C-alpha cells in the first residue's frame, strides 16, 4: 500500500494502482481543474490547467520537500510518499493565467452556446479566473466549420486541448482530426475531402471540455440545465453500453455514454447515440385495439387484461414470441403468463436482428452485429421454462404443423423492434392462428392481422434488466413516461399475472434470481455498473 499526501490529507492507494495527481486528489475530495487530461487517453500535459506543486516525504524523518516550481498534476505519478499541494498563491496565479490566456481569443458567446451550463471553461473561470478582462477587447467573431455529418466545430471556442485529436487516433483509430497551423493560429481541422466519418464520432463532442465541438443532432435543441439525467442501457446492440438518457418533460434530447469500465469505458457508438429518435416518431402506436366481428374497435386499457385472458383461454394450444428487446423481467412474466394458461405453451425467442459483422476499434470498443440488447437474458428465461430455446423460424414451422400434437390456436407476439421486422409472408404464416396478440412499437403486416393490437413501450420507458453479450446484467429504471395510450409491457403483464399496484421490476428480478441459477448473481440488487452473471456460471461449472 502506498500513501500519498494531498493538501495534508493522507490517501492510501493500492500497490498496483497507477494514478496521477488529479486522480489521487479526486480520492481526497479535491478537484484539480484540467482540460487536456482524460483517463481514457494519453497524457499530453499541454493545457497547463492542472498545475500544482509536488514533492516527497522522507519516510524516515517525515520531512517534506516540495519542488520549488509548479508541475502538471496529470503528468506527476502518485507514488509512496508523494506529496501534492493543490492550492497556494503560485498555483492560483498560474491557473488564473491559463484561464485568462484561454479567454483572450474566445468569443464568450455563452448565451448561444450549447455547452453553456456544462462547460469547463465557464466553471473554471468562475472558480479560478481573473475577475476582469485585462487583454484587449476584440470584436465578436465566431467561425463555424463542419467536421462531418455528425459534428460541427465552432473554431474560436476551442482551447486546443487536443482530446478530440487523440480520440480519433487512439480510440477510433481513424485519425481524421488534426491540428493545423501553429501558435495562436492553431485550429482543429480535417483534411479536405476526408471528414470526421467514423462510427464513434459523437464521442468527440462529449470529450470537448468547451463548446467547440457540437453535436449536430442536439445543436440548439435544449438547454443543458433543463435536462435530467437517467442511467440507462443502450439497446442498439448486444454490447449494451451504459448510457445516460437526458430528457426534459418526457422528451429525450440526447444519449451520452455513462462511464462503465466493464463495458464501454467512456464511449458509445453513433448508432446507439442517435438511435433514439424512433421513441418520439409520429408513427408510434398509441392505442390498444381489437378486431371483432364488428370490425376494429378501440379498447380501454382497463379492459385489456381480462379480454386477452378470456380470448387466449378459449384459443386452445398457445405460443409466445419473446422479443430480444424485452427486459429479463418482462420476458419472464410473459412466459409465466402464457404458461399459466397452457402449461405446454410453445415459447419462442423473437427474431434476432443481425446486421453485418462485429466491428472492433483500435482500443477494443466493439459494435456488435447483433442489434438487440437482451438475447442472452431472454434465451435464459425461455430455456428455464421450456428446457430448450425455440427459434422464431421453428415456431413458424410449428404454426403449420402443430406442436405437441395440437394446432396452435393463440399466439402472443412481443415486438419492440425499431425497424420493419416482419412482412406479408410472415403474417400469412399466422393466418390460421385464432387469437393473435401483437404488442409492438410500429405497425407491421403481422400487427395489422392481430386480434389484439397493443402499443408497446420504447427502451427509455421500460423498467428492467438486460444481459449483454458478455453476460453482464444491468438494471435500469424508466427515464420518460410512455406516450399517452401506451402501457408498458411490464405493467400489462404484471396485471395479467394478477398482481396489484404498479409493476416493480426489482421484485420480479429477485424472484428470477431465486428461481433461475443463471441469474442468481442478481439477487439482492444490481450495482449501477451491472453484475457479471458468468461468475456464477463459472462457480457452478467447477
Amino acid at each position, binding site marked *: 500500500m502506498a500513501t500519498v499526501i494531498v493538501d495534508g490529507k493522507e490517501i492510501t492507494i493500492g500497490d498496483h494502482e497507477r494514478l496521477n495527481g488529479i486522480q489521487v486528489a479526486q480520492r481526497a475530495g479535491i478537484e484539480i481543474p484540467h482540460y487536456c487530461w482524460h483517463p481514457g487517453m494519453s*497524457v*499530453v*500535459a*499541454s*493545457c*497547463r*490547467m492542472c*498545475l500544482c506543486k509536488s514533492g516527497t516525504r522522507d519516510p524516515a524523518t517525515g520531512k517534506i520537500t516540495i519542488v520549488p*516550481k*509548479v*508541475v*502538471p498534476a496529470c*503528468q506527476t505519478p502518485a507514488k509512496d510518499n508523494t506529496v501534492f499541494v493543490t492550492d497556494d498563491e*503560485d498555483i492560483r*496565479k*498560474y491557473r488564473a*493565467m*491559463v484561464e485568462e*490566456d*484561454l479567454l*483572450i*481569443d474566445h468569443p464568450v458567446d455563452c448565451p448561444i452556446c450549447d455547452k453553456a451550463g456544462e462547460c469547463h471553461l465557464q466553471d473554471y473561470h468562475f472558480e479560478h479566473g481573473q475577475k*476582469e*478582462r*485585462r*487583454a*484587449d*477587447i*476584440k*470584436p465578436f467573431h465566431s467561425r463555424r466549420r463542419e467536421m462531418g455529418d455528425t459534428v460541427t466545430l465552432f473554431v474560436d471556442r476551442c*482551447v*486546443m486541448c487536443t482530446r478530440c485529436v487523440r480520440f480519433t487516433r487512439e480510440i477510433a483509430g481513424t485519425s481524421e482530426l488534426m*491540428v493545423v*497551423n*501553429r*501558435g*495562436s*493560429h*492553431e485550429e482543429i481541422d480535417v483534411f479536405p475531402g476526408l471528414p470526421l466519418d467514423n462510427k464513434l464520432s459523437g464521442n468527440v463532442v462529449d470529450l470537448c471540455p468547451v463548446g467547440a465541438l457540437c453535436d449536430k443532432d442536439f445543436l440548439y435543441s435544449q438547454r443543458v440545465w433543463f435536462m435530467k439525467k437517467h442511467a440507462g442501457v443502450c439497446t442498439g446492440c448486444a454490447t449494451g453500453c451504459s448510457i445516460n438518457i437526458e430528457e426534459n418533460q418526457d422528451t429525450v434530447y440526447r444519449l451520452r455514454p455513462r462511464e462503465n469500465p466493464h463495458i464501454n469505458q467512456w464511449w458509445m457508438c453513433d448508432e446507439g447515440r442517435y438511435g433514439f429518435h424512433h421513441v418520439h416518431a409520429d408513427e408510434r402506436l398509441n392505442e390498444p385495439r381489437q378486431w371483432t366481428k364488428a370490425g376494429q374497435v378501440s379498447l380501454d386499457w382497463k379492459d385489456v387484461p381480462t379480454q386477452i385472458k378470456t380470448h387466449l383461454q378459449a384459443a386452445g394450444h398457445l405460443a409466445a414470441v419473446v422479443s430480444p428487446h424485452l427486459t429479463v423481467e418482462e420476458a419472464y412474466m410473459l412466459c409465466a403468463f402464457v404458461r399459466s394458461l397452457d402449461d405446454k405453451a410453445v415459447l419462442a425467442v423473437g427474431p434476432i436482428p443481425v446486421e453485418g459483422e462485429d466491428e472492433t476499434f483500435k482500443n477494443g470498443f466493439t459494435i456488435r452485429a447483433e442489434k438487440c440488447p437482451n438475447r442472452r437474458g431472454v434465451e435464459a428465461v425461455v430455456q428455464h421454462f421450456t428446457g430448450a430455446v425455440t427459434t422464431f423460424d421453428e415456431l413458424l414451422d410449428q404454426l403449420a404443423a402443430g406442436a405437441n400434437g395440437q394446432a396452435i390456436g393463440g399466439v402472443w407476439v412481443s415486438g419492440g423492434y425499431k425497424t420493419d421486422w416482419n412482412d406479408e409472408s410472415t403474417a400469412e404464416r399466422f393466418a390460421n392462428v385464432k387469437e393473435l396478440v401483437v404488442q409492438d412499437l410500429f405497425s407491421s403486416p403481422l400487427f395489422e392481422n392481430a386480434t389484439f393490437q397493443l402499443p408497446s413501450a420504447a427502451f427509455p420507458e421500460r423498467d428492467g434488466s438486460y444481459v449483454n453479450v458478455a453476460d453482464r446484467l444491468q438494471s435500469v429504471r424508466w427515464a420518460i413516461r410512455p406516450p399517452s395510450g401506451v402501457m408498458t409491457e411490464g405493467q400489462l403483464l404484471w396485471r395479467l399475472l394478477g398482481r396489484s399496484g404498479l409493476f416493480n421490476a426489482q421484485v420480479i428480478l429477485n424472484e428470477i434470481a431465486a428461481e433461475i441459477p443463471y441469474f442468481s448473481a442478481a439477487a439482492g440488487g444490481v450495482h449501477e455498473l451491472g453484475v457479471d452473471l458468468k461468475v456464477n456460471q463459472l462457480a457452478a461449472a467447477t
Partner: protein
Amino acid sequence: MPKFEPVLMANMHRPDSHTLKVYESTGGYQALKKVLKESTQESFRDLIKNSGLRGRGGAGFPTGLKWTFLPKDHPGPIYLCINADESEPGTFNNRYLMELDPHQVIEGTILSSFATKASTAYIYLRIEYPTCYEHLEAAIAECYAAGYLGKNILGSGYSLDMYMHRGAAAYICGEETGLIESLEGKRAWPRIKPPFPAVEGLFRKPTVVNNVETVACVKQIADRGVEWFKSIGVPPDPNNPRDAGSYGPKLYCLSGHVNKPGCYEAPLGITCRQLIDEYGGGVWKGRKAKAAIPGGISMGLLTEAELDTPLDFNGPGKVGCLGLGTAAVVVADETVNMVDFLHNSCRFFAHESCGQCTPCREGTHWSLSMLDRIKAGKGRLKDLDLLSEIGNHIGIIPGTTICGLSDGAAWPIKNALKKFRGDFEEYIKRTNPTGYMITDAVPALEGAGSH
C-alpha cells in the same frame, strides 16, 4: 595566456575545404583512426567526460555526462541525432562548420556515435541551408566510399550509418524532443519528460541529441587531447559547486551594428566588449552600443554597461540573462528604439511558438498584440506591467510549459522591461499623451497580433 589559435575554423579558408581530399591533407580522420584502434567505446566516452566539454547548442549541458545517461547494456539500436536546425536568431556558427568543413562535423559525429554505441546517426538540417545540405551529402558519400561510414569501419568492427533529414523550417524543431518528433514524421511538439531521450527517444529507443559544434569539439579533443582542451577557457567557479567550467574554443557569431560581422573562434570567457571591439571592429558608424544580445535573442539583453560580461556558460546568467545560449552576439547601437527591438523579438516568438502549451501559445501572441498597439502609439503604462507578468510567468523555470523555448520567449521581454523600462515609458508617454494612464481594457488594434 598564450595566443589563441583557432582550431575549429583553422581549415575553412582553404580552397575546396569541404572535400575529403583537402580534409585528409590537413590531418582529417587521423583522430578517428587513432580512437578506433586504441580506445574502447567506454574509454573514449570517459575521455570526453573528463574534458569538461559542454553542449554548444544553448543549454551547455556536459556532453560526456549526457552520454552516460544511456542505459547500460542496451540491446540497441541507439540513435545519435545531430541538431543542425540552427534557428536561433543571430546564430550561424553551425552553418560555417557544415558548409566549409563538413568532414570535421562528420568525423565528430562518427566519434560521438562510437562513444554512445549508436548504430545510426541522423543529421537534422534546417531547409534554409541548401549549401550545407549539398556539402554534407557529398561528404557522407565520400565517407562511405572511403570506409569511414558503413559496415565495419576501418576494420574496427564498429558499424555506423548516417542519414540527412531536412526540417521544414520551424524554430521548435531545435528543441531536442521536438526534433525527435519531427524526425519521426510527426508534428514537432516537444515531448513531456520523463522519459528523457537518453532512455526513450527516437522511435522509442535511447537517443542522444548533440549540436553540430559539440561534435566538432569532440573531434578536436580526440585529436589534441584533454589537456589542450582544458588549457582554453574558464575553470569552474570554486564557490559554485554546480559549475562545470567553460572549457574549450567557441564559435561566436557577431552581427548587428558592428563594422565586421561574422563568425569568430575565440576561447570561452572572452567578454562581449572584446568580441565587439577586437573581432568586430567596434560598433558601426562610430556610435556607441545601446544593448547586445549575449547568445541569441532568447537569452535576453545586455546593456552597454554590462558588455564586460565574460561570454562563458556562467557569465550572462550573472547579469540577469538566461545563459550563454548559442553565443550569437547581436549588437544594437544607440539609435535603436527598444520598443521596435522587443516588438521584433515578440513577433518572432509568437510566430514560432509551437502552440502546445497554453501559456506560451497565448502569452507570446498576447505580448505581440500589446506591442503592436504600443508601437502604433496607443500604449499604456499598464501594458508594461502585463508584459512583465507574461515574461515572468511562462517557461520551464516557473514550470508552466513543457519545453525551455518558452523561457527563451520570456527572457527578452523580462530583460527589456527591467533594463530599459525608461525607454518604454518615455515612448508610451510621448506617443499616447492622453491615454497612457488608462488601466481598463481597451479595444484591440485592428490586425494586432497577426504574424
